[in-house]
């Protein structure tokens, strides 16, 4: 059973885990959440802009949106993060100070927005054309019909895909460590890795991994919940009613509907 003990010692050294846990929670988890949530919020806003541009009737909006999406979706995340994190380091220093943290968030947002833009675009395009037509027929302008009717329906449909995207961002947030974070800015992966290097044992990384799972696994279940709850057009179960009942109601209703004078 030597190999078993070796595995336990290498991956599941609870002493080493316990030692690093306070740091993992207070620094790692906190930063991972800050980076992921900030990148998701920014990415969602940008993604919506990209999506609306992408379905615009004007090709002057459509083509740039296409190029943007192809670019940030087509490049490896690490490459984008390094190019932006190091390429704009000087500019960032004059705005945000020496920390690469904001640039990491921005790079992640740009990558996320390309994916989220495609998600939104697919959602908006999946809305029945009749919805937009009904709006236009009522005199609503194109932007108004999009904002009030079409886009909200499209977004509701893609909520599950958005949660999936958030999960991807949580995992990608670990890549920010390449930019060289300050001690207090380290996210889960970096905290785990530093401890692993110091102790010569992988258990702190396993602990970090478990914390990632604590975030991502419940979210995957939230996806299913959204899927059931927020899809429109799903009919609540109701006892069957005869169409004849409605006819009877109508006959008894206002004179306008039946054309009678009583």
């Amino acid at each position, binding site marked *: 059973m030597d190999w078993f003990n070796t595995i336990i010692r290498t991956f599941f050294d609870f002493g080493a885990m316990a030692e690093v846990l306070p740091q993992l929670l207070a620094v790692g988890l906190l930063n991972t959440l800050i980076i992921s949530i900030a990148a998701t919020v920014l990415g969602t806003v940008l993604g919506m802009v990209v999506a609306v541009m992408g379905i615009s009737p004007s090709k002057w909006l459509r083509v740039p949106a296409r190029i943007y999406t192809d670019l940030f979706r087509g490049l490896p995340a690490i490459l984008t993060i390094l190019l932006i994190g190091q390429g704009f380091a000087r500019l960032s220093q004059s705005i945000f100070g020496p920390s690469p943290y904001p640039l990491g968030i921005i790079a992640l947002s740009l990558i996320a927005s390309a994916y989220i833009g495609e998600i939104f675009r697919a959602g908006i395009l999946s809305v029945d054309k009749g919805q937009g037509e009904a709006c236009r027929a009522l005199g609503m302008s194109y932007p108004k019909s999009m904002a009030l009717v079409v886009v909200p329906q499209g977004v509701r449909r893609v909520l599950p895909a958005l949660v999936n995207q958030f999960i991807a961002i949580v995992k990608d947030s670990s890549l920010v460590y390449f930019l060289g974070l300050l001690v207090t800015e380290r996210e889960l992966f970096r905290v785990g890795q530093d401890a692993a290097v110091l102790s010569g044992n992988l258990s702190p990384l396993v602990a970090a991994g478990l914390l990632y799972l604590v975030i991502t696994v419940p979210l995957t279940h939230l996806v299913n919940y959204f899927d059931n709850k927020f899809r429109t*057009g799903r009919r609540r179960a109701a006892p069957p009613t005869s*169409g004849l009942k409605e006819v009877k109601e109508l006959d008894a209703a206002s004179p306008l509907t039946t054309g009678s004078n009583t």
Partner: protein
Amino acid sequence: MNTPTPTKNTTAGGTAAAPAFHGSSLELRNLTMAYGEIEVLRNVSLAVAPGTTTCIIGPSGSGKSTLLRGINRLHEPKSGDVLLAGDSALAVNPDTLRTRIGMVFQHFNLFPDHTAEENVALALWSVKGMPKAQAMDLARRRLAEVGLAERADHRPRDLSGGQQQRVAIARALAMEPEVMLFDEATSALDPELVKGVLNLMAGLGRRGMTMLVVTHEMGFARKVADQVVFMDEGEVVEAGTPTQLFDNPRSERLQRFLSEVL
């Protein structure tokens, strides 16, 4: 097949329950419409007097729906003109034009995440700029007029097809249009619910609304229409009173069409 026919009420009191409409005249002059290179409507001319009902009949693919969509410019005409109350519809902003023309679709096109009341109120506040409370109040009254006072809080998925179509009619009427366009408004309904919607439409006609009705309900066309227009292959083949068209069809194409549908 037995076509449901609305009860035509000729007594003057039939319109007493609801205020009269002030329908405008509608005239098409050499209207030509195309999808890309393909002309689907050629030189259609047609006059609808204020407060009268014109039914358009004809086989599928004859351009009936396209004609309606040209009038409110959901599809821009290629050439010719549309005159609404004597003014060219092509010379004004389409959004403004559409507030003056109500349209009812075959598949209702209600907003699925809005209640019946919100469906009716949406354009009232977003297009007409009515305060929301007032819009909701008016929406309730419009719904009551179509016999749906009890269903104002229901979402479309919880309404029958007939009820949904009546919400759609209330939604169009709430904008106080001068002309109403009906695009096969009863084609998607269960047979027992058709009569209720047709009766409602007939009532509007009696109250002075100008209506252009694309329909497969020959009984409705015969009883309610002041003018019937038979279209085939993008052209008006024959137009006249219901008696002229149904009892003495002159063209061979109309004779054949009637022998198929009656």
